């Protein structure tokens, strides 16, 4: 088997010697990380170490100066990014879901051409709402009426309904109370088919992840 085939079979995310700079500010230099399919990884590091920027690199929102990213064995570039995003579920600390009613915003991504093959599953949505301690009454509310924790869970529900295989959760449980956080973390722990890269300052999350990776200060670094 060649390397690409090996990556496709075993590794969901391969970050190779990635360097990201904003002007004179270097966020990370030569950073490498491999996440095998199905693994749950907690990414920690001091503020400003580039954790969120790394996640944004994986989605193609930021273009690194050096290095490569492979998702499911395919190198991320301007052409492949559109199909690779369809493999990724992304939830940030403050998800901006748009404007309107919650039920409409949940169904909105299913109208996108790329998701046309997917069908919105109301029963799946109801199950996830129950599992994540969300009231069904929220569906008829305007998104602006929701709390930060409710928005985070609604964003998680949307990404899960889209059936992605890789999840990038950037402080996605930061606004949840202990019960809701446990419910969300338990869900991902019980899904061995999902690859999860979680960015968090909450080291308690490490209890449910397979390993913890620390974004070190700016020096050549590698975490395989």
């Amino acid at each position, binding site marked *: 088997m060649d390397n690409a085939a090996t990556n496709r079979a075993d590794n969901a995310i391969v970050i190779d010697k990635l360097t990201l700079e904003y002007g004179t500010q270097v966020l990370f230099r030569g950073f490498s990380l491999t996440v095998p399919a199905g693994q749950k990884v907690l990414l920690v590091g001091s503020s400003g170490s580039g954790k969120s920027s790394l996640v*944004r690199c994986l*989605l*193609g*929102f930021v*273009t690194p100066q050096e290095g490569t990213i492979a998702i499911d064995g395919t190198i991320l*570039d*301007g*052409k492949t*990014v*559109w199909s690779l*995003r*369809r493999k*990724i*579920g*992304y939830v*940030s600390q*403050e*998800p*901006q*879901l*748009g*404007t309107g009613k919650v039920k409409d915003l949940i169904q*909105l*991504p299913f*109208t*996108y*051409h*790329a*998701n046309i093959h997917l069908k919105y599953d109301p029963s799946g949505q109801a199950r996830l709402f129950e599992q994540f301690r969300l009231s069904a009454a929220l569906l008829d509310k305007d998104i602006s009426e929701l709390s930060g924790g409710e928005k985070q869970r609604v*964003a998680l529900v*949307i*990404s899960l309904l*889209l059936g992605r295989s890789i999840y990038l959760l950037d402080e996605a449980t930061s606004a949840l109370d202990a019960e809701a956080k446990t419910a969300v973390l338990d869900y991902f722990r019980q899904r061995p088919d999902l690859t999860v890269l979680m960015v968090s300052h909450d080291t308690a999350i490490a209890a449910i992840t397979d390993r913890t990776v620390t974004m070190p200060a700016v020096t050549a670094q590698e975490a395989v």
Partner: protein
Amino acid sequence: MMNAADAIHPLALTAGYLMLLIPLAIIHWYRVPMLGQTISSVLRMTIQLILVGLYLQVVFRLNNPWLNMAWLLVMITVADLSILKGAQFRFGRLAAWLFAALLVGTAIPLFIFVGVILTRPEILDARYVIPIGGMILGNCLRADIIGIRTFYQSIRTGQKAYELALSQGATIAEAVRPHLRESIYQALTPTVATMANIGIVSLPGMMTGVIIGGNDPLTAIGYQIAIMLSIFTGTAITVFLAILLSARSAFTPYGILKQAIFKS
């Protein structure tokens, strides 16, 4: 057949300038810091209008379709440059897309107005095409600045929502839809509001011109309705096309808005 309006003798116009003594006295008395600026603006207006008047007199006398079209293109080019300046963007080659949007947005309602509504056989008749084209273009220019600025600024300020849409599988066209909706709304609202209040608050320019030209008010109303419909159609086409065409060069292959288009 239209009658000519009474000409104003240059000496009689002096009375108009003398009228200025009243606002200038108020400005001077209360030391409002705009005396120099006001005098300079009045001088500029006078010189610019004299030059344009002389030029248009030649254009109207020759009434050459090619010359009329060339003058329209000059007007559109100046409007294009004003949009780039007014919208505070560093567009570079995007100026060509904005020019195309203005050209199409002005040409379609202009030719419907002159060729279909007025049924003029000579569509490029200077007497119609230049003043009517100018009115449509002036409004397209104002709407375009609002539309373009709203569109790109709202993507910039709503970056998180835009990126979330991309991460959920949206194409650029799908992800910008709420921003497109907002910018078209902002750009067209002034014209919609004007149409709702026209005739009550003030008599609009075109209607006034037709009445002074010696026609009865009902004829003037026909012209005014036609120009308002043309302006609204023209602004909608221009704003929509300007966003659609400029967006082709404003995003990276990853679907991210190029920060380089902003001046600040």
